[in-house]
C-alpha cells in the first residue's frame, strides 16, 4: 500500500459540484496556501465517458507534479481508467456521492440494508434540478406527456423511499419544501419520504489525509502513485 507523499507538493482538488458547499466550508480551516479548487457540473456522470474525459483532461492540464484530490466516487465507471501521469491521485473508495454525503461507507451500507430501493436527494442535486420531479418536466417538454410519464414509470416504480440527505438542521429547513415537492410527485410509486442527517466526516477525513505527513490511505480511500492507473477493481469491496 502506498503512503501519501510528504507535504510540499501542490494540492489540487477536482470535485463534483455536489460537494462544493461542504468542501469550501472544510477548507476554511486549511493552514497555509489553499489548494486549487475546481468544481465540475453535476450532470457529467450521466454519460460516464464524458466524466472520464473531463477529469482526465483536467488532470493532464496540471503542470506541476501535484497531489490531486478527486471529489468523486466510481460514478458508473466514470472514474475508472484514469491515468495519474506525473501526479498522485487520492479519491474516496465509494460507488458514488451518497456514501460521501452520508459520512461513511458504513453509513451507506446501513441505509442500503434498511431500504435498498432508495432514491437520494441532496441540496446539490435539488439545485442542479436532478430529481424525479424536474426530470419528468424536462422529459415532457422533450417527448410529450404520455411518453414522459411512461419513461418515469419505467425508471422509478421500484423505488420505495425518497431520502433527503442534509448536512445539518438548517440545511434541511431551507430545502425541505423543495424536497417535499419531489416527494409529493413520487408518492405515485408509494415512495415514502424521509430526512437523513448526513455528515461531512468522509470529506473531513479526506482533507486530514491530504494534510498528513505520509499517512496510509486506509480502506476508505484510494491512492494512485505517479504513473499509476485508477481502476474499477480497486473500488470493489468484498465485505
Amino acid at each position, binding site marked *: 500500500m502506498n503512503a501519501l507523499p510528504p507535504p510540499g507538493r501542490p494540492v489540487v482538488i477536482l470535485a463534483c459540484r455536489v460537494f462544493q458547499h461542504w468542501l469550501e466550508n472544510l477548507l476554511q480551516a486549511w493552514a497555509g496556501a489553499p489548494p486549487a479548487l475546481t468544481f465540475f457540473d453535476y450532470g457529467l456522470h450521466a454519460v460516464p465517458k464524458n466524466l472520464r474525459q473531463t477529469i482526465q483532461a483536467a488532470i493532464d492540464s496540471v503542470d506541476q507534479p501535484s497531489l490531486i484530490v478527486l471529489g468523486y466516487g466510481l460514478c*458508473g*465507471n466514470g472514474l475508472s481508467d484514469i491515468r495519474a501521469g506525473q501526479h498522485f491521485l487520492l479519491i474516496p473508495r465509494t*460507488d458514488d456521492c451518497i456514501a460521501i454525503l452520508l459520512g461513511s461507507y458504513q453509513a451507506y451500507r446501513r441505509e442500503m440494508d434498511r431500504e*435498498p430501493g432508495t432514491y437520494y436527494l441532496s441540496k446539490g442535486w435539488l439545485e442542479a434540478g436532478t430529481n424525479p420531479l424536474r426530470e419528468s418536466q424536462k*422529459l415532457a417538454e422533450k417527448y410529450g406527456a404520455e*411518453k414522459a410519464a411512461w419513461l418515469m414509470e419505467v425508471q422509478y416504480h*421500484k423505488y420505495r423511499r425518497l431520502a433527503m440527505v442534509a448536512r445539518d438542521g438548517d440545511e434541511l429547513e431551507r430545502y425541505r419544501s423543495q424536497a417535499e415537492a419531489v416527494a409529493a410527485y413520487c408518492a405515485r410509486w408509494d415512495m415514502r419520504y424521509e430526512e437523513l442527517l448526513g455528515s461531512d466526516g468522509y470529506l473531513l477525513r479526506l482533507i486530514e489525509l491530504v494534510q498528513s505527513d505520509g499517512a496510509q490511505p486506509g480502506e476508505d480511500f484510494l491512492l494512485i502513485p505517479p504513473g499509476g492507473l485508477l481502476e*474499477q*477493481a480497486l473500488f470493489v*469491496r468484498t465485505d
Partner: protein
Amino acid sequence: MTLEQIFQNVVEGEMAAVEAGVRSALEQGIPADRILNEALIQAMAKVGRLFEEGEIFVPEMLFAARAMQTGLKLLKPALAATDVQSAGKVAIGTVQGDLHDIGKNLVVMMLEGAGFEVEDLGTDVPPEKFVQAVQNGAQVIGMSALLTTTMASMLKTMEALRAAGVREHVKVVIGGAPVTDAYARKIGADAYAADASVATRIVRQLIA
C-alpha cells in the same frame, strides 16, 4: 399500412401508430411472421445501430422497444399458430441485493425485439433462481448489477451454476454501471455487455 410504415413507426417509438399498423397489416392478411421479421425485428436492429452510433439515446431506444412490444403482443396469437423459431432462450435478472432494473428492462426489450424468447427473472434474484432458469432450458443467463457492493452476487451466482453442474450448459453475460470486461473474466462469465444494444449482439454470437 405497409410494413415499411410499421418499421418506421417502431424506429420513431410511436406505439399507437405501430399498434394500428400491425392490426391493419393482419387484417390485410399479411402473415404474422413477415410482420415480425420484416418490420419489428428489422426496426429494432436499426434502433440498436443508431444507439451504438450515438445517434439516439436511452429514452429513444426505450420508446422504440415499447412500440415493438406492443406490436409483438398483437402478433403473438398468430405466431403461436405458425411454427416460428425463436432465436434462442435467454433468462435475465438483476442480482440478489440489487433492485435497479432500468438497464435490465431495456436489455429484455431489445432481446425480444431481436427475436429471442426472454424470461425476465426480475430484481433481487437469488443464485438458485438463475440455476433453475438454466434447468428450464435457458441457453444464456444475463445478470445485471448497479453497485459494486452487489456485484459480488454475480460471483455467487457463477459458483451456484458450477455447484449445480449446469455451468457448461449455459453462456453467461453480465452488465451494469460498475461492471467491466475485466470483472467478467475474473468471475468466469462468458462476456460483458456495455449496453443493451451490445448485449443483443453478444447473445446472438454466443448461441450462434
